[in-house]
């Protein structure tokens, strides 16, 4: 096997994998979807090719076509898949099966469903060896332990006998990678390998794939929707849209000077780019409309209906990829200006968001003005044993003493990894659950003291926005009934007044009246999120708690929803609690940010300070782990990486809960650090930096 890790192989080197005009169709009950239309790609030996696109762009179908794993009804209907010069489509089936089994490996998105829950890890990882290489049992076990060691599993000799459910998500993904690598493939296809994982785990897995690529001298196809993941890891990038490759280039070139208008728009839609360039929060560029329906015949550039620079020519003529190193399929590409980064037509986006009223409030103002005030909030769940008697087996400490305040018109961002209790805080704030201890004040009224009629009226003040609006809407109710429901519950107005209110709501979120007669399953994710937002607004609340409101959306749709949320905040003076695992989105949206770790707030402060001058080691690690589209951003980071996994909330560590993973931990960390500071508070014995004097001295949270 070649040990080459060449970044840019000379033209003479034969590509390891070459797709030529690949067409893939998927037959459905109601017609055929042309998932891929003339896709051509090359992967050189030892190279990482990033394939990026939104959902429905065909990036996963490309991977599945290569592996021959298309869903039922799917078939490659044209073109060639050349692997090491031989066309997989014309080779005999047995040979293809061997090539795909031994020379290629694939890692899927969800490590839980891609592992068989009834098979031990060892047996599972060794399966390709036993099938393709006829290796004996004892031998296979040896090699399995070896490969598990190489993917960084602790105690591989013990883990081989475990079952998948005994491992965490990150560990499972390592097992899936080990499985793909056990036959030493030449090509690893990773389809959204880290999308289901937390950022700190994501970083570990991406680094692992990088290391293994060098070690095994293999090529990697990294399929993802996340531009940041690609920017840090890939040698070359192919951008896909609606079943076609629209642009390919070396990573640095692509991110510095994107040529295709779609690529450009995609980058502008990232919250990160809106913050980075202007400092102030510019309005996000949102790509209007939706991707085309691939079951219909399409002419011309497929991005034309959503493009800002479209001309009549774009709609008619078929556009092919240009030649050369940097290929793009665009009639009106972004002009190459060597020095400047992404060049943008200025008028479209220079619209600085107005400063919300909240943060300007002086330090002297009493806390009574805050819309939401949370003090020493505690929520424990009893972990029950099974059976009729249900002995209590212990307590899960979901939220452990959280305090913060949200002013009128302010956005408070809550960040943290899954299991840190941020969603529980949201549910407590809207009154869906009752706290074990602590106080929640809405507009100065304690929630605990309310009952019956008053409690019902309280719900007018605060509404919850869900991550998955489809799940949050009764599938059997039409949109008019869905939007009328809050008004009916709160007995607001009569029928006519409600209809008028609903019409206003639709105008506010930018939907036409016709949606009223339709059912939730007929809408796309972005439209559902608008309807969800309209429902939240129906009662004219002062506070909306958004629990990952844009996490399930594509970048371009996400930008639409984020812009809408900001517009409405400005118009209606709303306050938001914005809960997300995505630091860049929270950074864009929030005035102040609270970082949660295992049920505790470890850092609270103005958004800019928290993100750019983090004081808690965990916050810094979180920031470092977020993939950025800025080329070479990884190198510039000060390198706090955390290893390992989140401890169980059933028996959380004493003292500082982060100390088990903290690089700075010392003995004193066994005692609990208080949340200290004026405007930018941190709960750490060894804060990374002193509180900057520039921070506005606003007592945000009560320690």
């Amino acid at each position, binding site marked *: 096997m070649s040990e080459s890790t060449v970044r840019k192989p000379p033209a003479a080197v034969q590509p390891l994998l070459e797709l030529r005009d690949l067409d893939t169709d998927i037959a459905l009950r*109601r017609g055929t979807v042309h998932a891929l239309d003339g896709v051509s790609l090359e992967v050189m030996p030892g190279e990482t090719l990033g394939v990026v696109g939104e959902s429905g762009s065909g990036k996963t179908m490309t991977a599945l076509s290569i592996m021959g794993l298309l869903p039922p009804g799917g078939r490659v209907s044209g073109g060639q898949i050349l692997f090491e010069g031989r066309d997989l489509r014309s080779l005999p089936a047995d040979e293809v099966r061997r090539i795909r089994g031994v020379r290629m490996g694939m890692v899927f998105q969800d490590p839980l469903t891609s592992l068989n829950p009834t098979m031990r890890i060892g047996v599972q990882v060794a399966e390709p060896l036993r099938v393709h290489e006829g290796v004996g049992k004892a031998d296979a076990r040896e090699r399995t332990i070896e490969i598990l060691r190489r993917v960084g599993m602790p105690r591989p000799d013990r883990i081989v006998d475990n079952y998948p459910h005994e491992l965490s998500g990150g560990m499972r993904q390592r097992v899936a990678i080990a499985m793909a690598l056990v036959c030493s493939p030449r090509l690893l296809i990773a389809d959204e390998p880290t999308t289901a994982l937390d950022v700190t785990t994501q970083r570990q897995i991406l680094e692992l794939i990088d290391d293994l690529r060098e070690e095994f001298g293999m090529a990697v196809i990294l399929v993802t929707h996340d531009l940041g993941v690609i920017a840090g890891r890939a040698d070359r990038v192919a951008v896909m849209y609606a079943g076609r490759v629209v642009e390919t280039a070396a990573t640095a070139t692509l991110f510095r000077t994107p040529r295709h208008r779609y690529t450009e728009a995609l980058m502008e839609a990232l919250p990160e780019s809106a913050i980075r360039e202007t400092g102030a929060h510019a*309005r996000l560029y*949102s*790509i*209007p*409309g*939706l991707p085309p*329906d691939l079951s219909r015949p399409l002419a011309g550039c497929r991005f034309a209906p959503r493009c800002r620079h479209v001309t009549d020519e774009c709609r008619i003529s078929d556009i092919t990829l240009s030649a050369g190193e940097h290929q793009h399929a665009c009639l009106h590409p972004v002009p190459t200006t060597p020095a400047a980064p992404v060049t943008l037509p200025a008028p479209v986006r220079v619209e600085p968001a107005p400063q919300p009223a909240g943060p300007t409030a002086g330090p002297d103002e009493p806390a009574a003005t805050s819309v939401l005030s949370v003090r020493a909030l505690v929520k424990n769940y009893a972990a029950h044993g099974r*059976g*009729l008697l249900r002995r209590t087996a212990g307590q899960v400490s979901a939220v452990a003493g959280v305090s913060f305040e949200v002013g009128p018109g302010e956005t408070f961002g809550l960040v943290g990894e899954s299991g840190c209790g941020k969603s529980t805080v949201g549910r407590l704030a*809207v*009154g*869906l659950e009752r706290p074990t201890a602590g106080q929640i004040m809405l507009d100065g009224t304690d929630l605990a003291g309310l009952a019956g009629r008053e*409690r*019902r*009226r*309280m*719900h*007018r003040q605060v*509404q*919850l926005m*869900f991550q*998955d609006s*489809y*799940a*949050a*809407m*009764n*599938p*059997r*109710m039409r949109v008019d009934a869905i939007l009328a*429901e*809050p008004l009916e*519950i*709160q007995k607001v107005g009569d029928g006519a007044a409600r209809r008028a209110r609903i019409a206003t709501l639709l105008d506010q979120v*930018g*939907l*036409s009246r*016709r*949606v009223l*007669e*339709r*059912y939730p*399953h*007929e*809408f*796309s994710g*972005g*439209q559902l999120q*608008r309807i969800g937002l309209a*429902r939240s607004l129906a*009662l004219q609340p002062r506070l909306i708690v958004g629990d990952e409101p844009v996490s399930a959306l594509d970048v371009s749709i996400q930008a*639409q929803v984020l*812009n*809408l949320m900001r*517009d409405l905040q400005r118009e209606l003076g709303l306050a938001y609690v914005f809960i997300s695992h995505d630091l860049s989105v929270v950074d864009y949206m929030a005035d102040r940010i609270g970082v949660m770790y295992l049920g505790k707030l470890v850092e609270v402060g103005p958004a800019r300070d928290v993100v750019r001058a983090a004081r808690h080691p965990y916050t810094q690690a979180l920031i470092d782990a977020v993939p950025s589209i800025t080329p070479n951003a990884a190198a510039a980071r000060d390198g706090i990486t955390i290893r390992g996994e989140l401890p169980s909330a059933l028996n959380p560590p004493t003292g500082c809960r982060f100390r088990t993973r903290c690089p700075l931990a010392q003995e004193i960390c066994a005692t609990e650090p208080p949340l200290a500071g004026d405007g930018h508070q941190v709960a750490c014995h060894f804060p990374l930096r002193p509180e900057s004097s520039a921070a506005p001295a606003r007592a945000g949270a009560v320690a």
Partner: protein
Amino acid sequence: MSTLSEAVRPGAAPAPPADAADEPVRGLWRQGLVVFCENRLALVGLGLFVLLAGICFLGPLFYHTDQVHTDLTAVHLAPGEQGHPLGTDGVGYDQLGRLMLGGQTSIIVGLAAGILATAVGTLWGAVAGFAGGWVDPAMMRVVDAMMSIPSLFLFMLLAAIVTPSVPMLILIIGAFAWLGPARLVRGEALTLRSREYVQAMRGMGGTGGRAVRRHIVPNAIGTVIVNATFQVADAILYVAYLSFLGLGVPPPAANWGGMLSDGLADTYSGHWWLLYPPGIAIILIVLAFNFIGDGLRDAFEVRLRRR
């Protein structure tokens, strides 16, 4: 999920004119009917049921036979002999007329017992699922306990104690068939109760009663109706079992299971017309209900809907 090109407003730009406006908007029930009608087998099942029920209930109006008095001068007549299209049985009853009479019993008992079992089971399961706490395990252990007793044994015991009659058969079958729906509905209620749209409604200040009325019942009703068709099919089979064991309605009343049981004695005497017609009738009616159930399942599956 389909993605209709409904107007999506980019930022604050004016809403662009949307296409696909001409299609009429249909209600959920209409759409469900369309999906049901697309399922050929479901239509076949429906047709089969209408046909069989029509023959059994309307047939005797046109085809008069004496199903009360035995006629020992005309026993075991082959089909076609002496004006008996399907021959006669061992005591001289006309076989075709008897099939109609037996079908009435089978269909009435099947439908009634199936509906009874579904109603009782749904109520039981729903209460257990909604109430939760200690009520749920207590109620479900009752179901488990009853399920652990072989139903055949209980049927025999009960049938020995009470005199079999049509209402009795309905009660006996219903008394045991409700266990399945009870489990099903309880599971459904448990998942529906924790759905996000129920939580969203609670977040608006709604009460548990509204959750049940507006969200849980409408979403569970599909499962319940689909299950009911399978319950009917099962109940028809139960009648057949019981009659086969000699625990059915006493003569001169008849039902398909009993006729099958009687015909079995004649297997080796070449009287095939006593064996096959009731057997085929049972198979057809059970198949019909199963097909209808499958079709209804599709019809209630919202995601298969489209405009």
